[in-house]
């Protein structure tokens, strides 16, 4: 196997995007994504069975397109890679089975990759080597996490995560309450620009002292988030306006909700960074496209002397290039392939970078 600048094909199917990406070393050749997002619109959220059915139908066409765009053949590939978790079990299964089949058919080594760590690894495709003292803030419809990345190939630690809904899920649910459609993130972000973010003070989950503790004696959820109470608070606010016979100030609610989400995400992320010697932060996941999250993360990073890196949005949302990018690093670092007997793991921990 070529371990100096390997040609790696990565497969992603953990949620509603079927992705096939191809990289050579840390150069991106192609990033092909087929999304089933449209099919989830009428349900207001990702329906796992619908996503799984869409992955099955999209896989071969997406693979074909990726190979064509990169101008390479399966024969030329040095290694295959696939997201083995975390994610939706039935969705992961499709990508894993297809990847294993390609490994059987071609005899190429297969790497089973952690989706969350791949969100960090994608940073290598844009801006080169990852800095020291690195942290990663991942915010999407499926996750909200803050990681410490000592080594992208063998030392990643989870500092905090959501204990209930992911931030993107909270956006979807609130968008539904406000009648704004799916996906909620872009709709709320747009409307929030016309509203007053200070109109209503929505709760910042897990921010009470009993959860936070102190730096010396951290509470049980010092760097963790919770968004389910926030969703309920928005519903209650809407009903109070309705009960009083008043027009619901949708833009103000959207802006105030967004402010609550973004404030608590960035505040806790900054705390995690400063208390864990993190001086460089990478922002990833689909919600990295949110204008307010980007702005406040930039502002607060600057205030804390933390450098911020945000990959292009096409690399922030779920895709196969990120899987290939991380696998490529593992190949170059001499990591062993995962074989073809592994099981997808819907709750794969970040400490398991590859199987």
């Amino acid at each position, binding site marked *: 196997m070529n371990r100096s600048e390997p040609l790696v094909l990565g497969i992603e199917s953990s949620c509603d995007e079927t992705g096939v990406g191809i990289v050579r070393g840390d150069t991106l050749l192609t990033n092909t994504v087929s999304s089933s997002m449209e099919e989830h619109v*009428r*349900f*207001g959220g990702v*329906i796992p*069975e*619908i996503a*799984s*059915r869409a*992955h*099955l139908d999209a*896989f*071969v066409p997406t*693979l*074909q397109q990726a190979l064509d765009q990169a101008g390479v053949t*399966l024969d030329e590939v040095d290694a295959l890679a696939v997201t083995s978790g975390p994610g939706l*079990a*039935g969705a992961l*299964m*499709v990508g*894993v*089975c*297809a*990847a*294993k*089949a*390609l*490994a*059987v*058919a*071609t005899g190429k080594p297969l790497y089973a990759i952690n989706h969350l760590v791949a969100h960090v690894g994608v940073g290598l495709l844009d801006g080169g080597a990852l800095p020291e003292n690195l942290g990663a803030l991942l915010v999407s419809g499926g996750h909200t996490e803050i990681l410490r990345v000592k080594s992208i190939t063998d030392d990643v630690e989870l500092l905090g995560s959501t204990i209930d809904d992911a931030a993107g899920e909270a956006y979807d649910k609130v968008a*539904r*309450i406000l009648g704004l459609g799916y996906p909620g993130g872009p709709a709320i972000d747009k409307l929030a620009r016309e509203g007053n973010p200070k109109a209503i003070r929505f709760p910042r989950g897990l921010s009470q002292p009993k959860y936070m503790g102190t730096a010396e004696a951290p509470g049980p959820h010092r760097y963790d988030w919770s968004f389910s109470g926030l969703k*309920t608070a928005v*519903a*209650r606010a809407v*009903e*109070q306006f309705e*009960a009083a016979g008043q027009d619901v100030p949708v833009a103000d609610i959207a802006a105030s909700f967004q402010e609550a989400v973004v404030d608590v995400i960035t505040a806790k992320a900054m705390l995690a960074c400063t208390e864990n010697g993190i001086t460089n932060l990478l922002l990833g996941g689909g919600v990295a496209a949110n204008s307010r999250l980007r702005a406040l993360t930039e502002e607060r990073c600057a205030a804390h002397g933390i450098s911020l890196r945000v990959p292009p949005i096409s690399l922030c949302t779920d895709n196969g290039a990120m899987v290939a990018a991380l696998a490529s690093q593992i190949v170059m670092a001499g990591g062993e392939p995962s074989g*073809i*007997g*592994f*099981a*997808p793991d819907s709750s794969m921990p970040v400490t398991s970078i590859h199987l």
Partner: protein
Amino acid sequence: MLILSIDTSAIASAALLTGEGETLQAFATEDTRTHAEVLAPGIHGLLCAAGVSGAELDALVVGVGPGPFTGLRSGIATARALAFAWNKPLHGVMSLDAIAVDAALDAWRLGIDEFIVATDARRKEVYWARYYSTGGTHQLIDGPHVSAPADVPELPAYGRGAGLYPEQLKAVPDFSGTQPTAEALGRTAVVSLVRGLPLLETTPLYLRESDAKVPGPRKRAL
């Protein structure tokens, strides 16, 4: 002719068959929930054991169900990716045919004209189809369907779905535990392939919608 057959509509299985319907190698697991783990190693193992490479195959066939969704998809995803990588034709076969092929012969011996094949659809339902046995050869006349065991026509029933519901289905004892296998599926496909008869696309026969519900009006939070 050399055919690789795969079915994961119930158990995970794969088989390598000749154009005469002779099985060269076969792999099957009893487990119905570990398809994504065991199927690829199973296929790799039987190719190695037979000393056959993908390039030597003439075609692949895959069971398109009906079967529990996640398991069913593992076989189809595997078969489609293999066929793509090897650039070989891939055909679908209705998975209940893999039981019907042997059931038809048994029915003929017993003087039964019409029979049912049933498999476990979970949620207290069965996947089933109605067949005619013409001199020991199966002919699908109705189905596949998914329904409660009580709604299946009262005919001799073959397969594990019948064995699971002895009160409602007239299970044929020797076949009450029979599951579809790639080996039997391959035997039914070979006959068509050799004669140049059409088989199915590889679109899965889910028979059930996803459980997704369009959300109703907002629930009161107060």
